[in-house]
């Protein structure tokens, strides 16, 4: 069948600049560029190009420009280029359209409509270069009150707190499994988390033995596929996360195509090589809230109550009520993943249409838990669309204890969000299990880039806090007076629990 799909991008090569070094030919994992020996020229197959900018970045003479295909169908507000492509693709394949990374539509971002406060006159702003500025955060259940007794003139604490995660910066790395991303990338995340005093998350693909040494900064996941879950896996980690849902694909399980299941990935996941690793949509032992309680306590029993248990859900319509149930079921951490959260592979229709923005979910969950008097019983970790330190500060002011980032972390090590993670051919060596492509990420350099990003954001967070006259992050957490809204309706302001700017 002849394809009616037009190339999305056009590769332009400046013949005068091109020195035929073939860097582009070697770098492109989609076979876009090839060398024509007869004419001594490099040519391109435009239809293969995903606009990942790998060749552009590495071309020594800057000879390449990638352009959006200027050919366009007749203009139509309803029938966009994307709509055309999707329909043509499906009429040629009868397939579900897969995609990678997070929702790319513009209509969900509330961060850009929230503005922060600063001190003027009546209270002083604080200079983080000259004064202490504290962003350490502890995740886990906190008691209603502490009991203490006097022993020989000393106050002695009688209340024993349940296990807590100590974060030196309120930013963790979101769950990304080995198989979805390469081992080199996971190692870089583990090393950066260790260096910066925060946590990486194994995702649902098990934990490679070579990463056990980073266990003190690891959260391991127990998901519906139970891939790679065994006693040592639970023991080596600092916290365990039950994955119910993911922001990019609420209601469905993780997908790892068989092509990415190499010998090594298979061993870590405890499945045969080359088989599709398809996690069931629900956890088949959790059909209700009381079932969740059983799994939470099964994990707590298995780990002898030494580790906090996190439960991760996609932000959906009834997140507040669901979160309340999760806290009552014994979750120490509620991980919320918003509609803009990314993925290695998801049906595009689900990624772009299911779930709610993380901002609204944080506000509603935090408020509901407070109204029920149980906000202290669990920490809230927000993820799904955190792009900058300002987003982090806004998330915390809305009510999150900490955030997790994944897309921003991958961008730091090369990702250009070309949204083709599901192919396993990531030209940047990130979303792949191909040993040859994986070599493009050097764990040492990548971990340095990640640690740099965390340090830069941490410093920016301190600057913003200092401006507000706050020198400890617990005074920012849930402090919605630090926020004002612009361009929001009364209902949106009410749900976010913030006032209008100028009010």
């Amino acid at each position, binding site marked *: 069948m002849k394809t009616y799909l037009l190339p999305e991008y056009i590769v332009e090569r400046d013949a005068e600049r091109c020195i035929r070094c073939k860097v582009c030919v070697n770098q492109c994992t989609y076979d876009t560029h090839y060398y024509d020996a007869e004419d001594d020229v490099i040519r391109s197959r435009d239809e293969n190009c995903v606009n990942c900018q790998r060749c552009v970045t590495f071309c020594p003479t800057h000879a390449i420009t990638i352009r959006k295909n200027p050919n366009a169908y007749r203009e139509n507000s309803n029938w966009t280029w994307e709509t055309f492509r999707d329909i043509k693709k499906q009429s040629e394949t009868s397939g579900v359209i897969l995609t990678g990374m997070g929702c790319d539509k513009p209509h969900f971002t509330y961060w850009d409509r929230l503005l922060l406060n600063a*001190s003027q006159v*009546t*209270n*002083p702003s*604080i200079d983080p270069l000259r*004064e*202490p500025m*504290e962003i*350490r955060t*502890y995740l886990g259940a*906190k*008691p209603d*009150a*502490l009991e*203490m007794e*006097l022993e020989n*003139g*000393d*106050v*002695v*604490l009688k*209340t024993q*707190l349940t296990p*807590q995660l100590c974060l030196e910066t309120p930013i963790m790395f979101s769950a990304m499994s080995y198989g979805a991303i390469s081992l080199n990338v996971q190692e870089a995340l583990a090393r950066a988390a260790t260096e910066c005093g925060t946590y990486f998350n194994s995702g649902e693909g098990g934990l490679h033995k070579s990463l056990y040494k980073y266990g003190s900064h690891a959260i391991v996941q127990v998901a519906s596929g139970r891939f790679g879950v065994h006693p040592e896996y639970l023991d080596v980690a600092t916290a365990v996360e039950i994955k119910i849902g993911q922001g990019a694909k609420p209601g469905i399980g993780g997908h790892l195509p068989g092509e990415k299941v190499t010998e090594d990935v298979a061993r870590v996941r405890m499945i045969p090589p080359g088989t599709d690793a398809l996690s069931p949509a629900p956890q088949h032992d959790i059909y209700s809230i009381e079932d969740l309680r059983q799994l939470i306590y099964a994990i707590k029993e298995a780990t002898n109550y030494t580790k906090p248990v996190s439960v991760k859900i996609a932000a959906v319509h009834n997140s507040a009520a669901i979160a309340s149930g999760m806290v009552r079921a014994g979750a120490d951490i509620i991980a919320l993943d918003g509609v803009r959260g990314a993925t290695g592979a998801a049906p595009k229709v689900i990624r772009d249409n299911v779930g709610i923005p993380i901002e609204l979910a944080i506000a509603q969950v935090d408020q509901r838990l*407070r109204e029920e*008097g149980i*906000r*202290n019983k669990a920490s809230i970790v927000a993820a799904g669309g955190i792009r900058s330190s300002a987003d982090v500060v806004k998330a915390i002011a809305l009510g999150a204890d900490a955030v997790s980032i994944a897309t921003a972390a991958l961008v730091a090590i090369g990702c250009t969000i070309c949204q083709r993670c599901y192919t396993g051919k990531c030209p940047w060596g990130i979303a792949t299990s191909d040993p040859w492509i994986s070599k493009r990420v050097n764990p040492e350099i990548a971990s340095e880039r990640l640690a740099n990003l965390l340090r830069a954001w941490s410093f920016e967070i301190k600057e913003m806090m200092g401006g*507000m*006259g*706050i*020198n*400890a992050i*617990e*005074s*920012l*957490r*849930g*402090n*919605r*007076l*630090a926020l004002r809204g612009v361009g929001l309706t009364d209902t949106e302001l009410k749900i976010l629990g913030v*006032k209008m700017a100028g*009010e």
Partner: protein
Amino acid sequence: MMKNIGKINNPYNDDKDFDGCSLFGMMNLEGKRFSARDPIRAIANMHERGNGLGGGFAAYGIYPEHQDDYAFHIMYLSKEAKEKTDKLLRENFEVLHDEEIPTRTANVRDPPLVWRYFVQPIKQRLEGQSEEDYVIAQVMRINTETGKAFVFSSGKNMGVFKGVGYPEDIADFFRLDEYEGYLWTCHGRFPTNTPGWWGGAHPFNILDWTVVHNGELSSYGINRRYLEMYGYKCTMRTDTEVLAYAVDLLMRRQRLPVEIVAKIFAAPLWSEIDAMEPKKQQLLKALRQTYGSLLMNGPFSIIIAHHGEMIGLTDRIKLRPLIAGTRDNFLYLSSEEAAIRLVSPTLDRVWYPRGGEPVVGKLGERPTIEVLAYREEKVK
């Protein structure tokens, strides 16, 4: 109705009130009563720190003839409010004596009708509540239900006197020179957004607890949301109210000693906690983990008082002033040293407490938990 108090107190619907202030506290550690003369002179000496839009006093030990009765000071903005409140009071309390608080003409603005009642709760009405919780509930009810009545003092053998004017003028108005107490705290106010409302002046009071406060809490938003989880309704929309409720939650309801409460309001830095010996570290760490939402962040100095105890505290990086001094059996706390020197030119000791380090004056032998280990500046 609930809205009314909040609206009167914070008419522009700002996040909270913004003000600067002067504080003064004076306590006889043996419990001997003394006249208001010195406290009035001292706070008047800091005239420039206020702007005439708020002044007030808390005095302990002033009603020995009614020492076991709750003394309610109530301000009324209308006659109907008084009628309603009288009815409410008589339904829920045995009113042993009531009278208009004696006043004289003074340089104050629009004084309301101020009345005091000495009352005992009607036992059958407690219904399992503690007497204190019952009194608090009734006070909240009057303050929210009747509209134009406001209980600004509700402890036993103590009283709050406050209003719109310079503190020396408020003292003149209430004829405070005629009272004797063993502990006085005083406040002169420089509000920026809550002018003209008598109830908005300091001290803030519930039962025998009072707070005078100089500062603006940048953490107000979360302090308030945390307290709301424990049933407090922050109707006044001021950060001082938040401090008063936090004191009530931690010291009265949870019975935490003042030295511990100081470490919650003005927590040590993590770097300091990390360097402590293990047991102390465990305690201080748990305090920050559990009560982080009650960290009072931003500039403040406060004097908290209740029977037998006067506590001075500043924020942990001391963005507002506090000076302490002792002479014989007197403990002085003040925003400025000059005010102390005015009433006691020679002092046994005078010092500038470090940020977050409480100064605690305790009366005689009271069954409170002493935590000497965590008190670095012990009052002699």
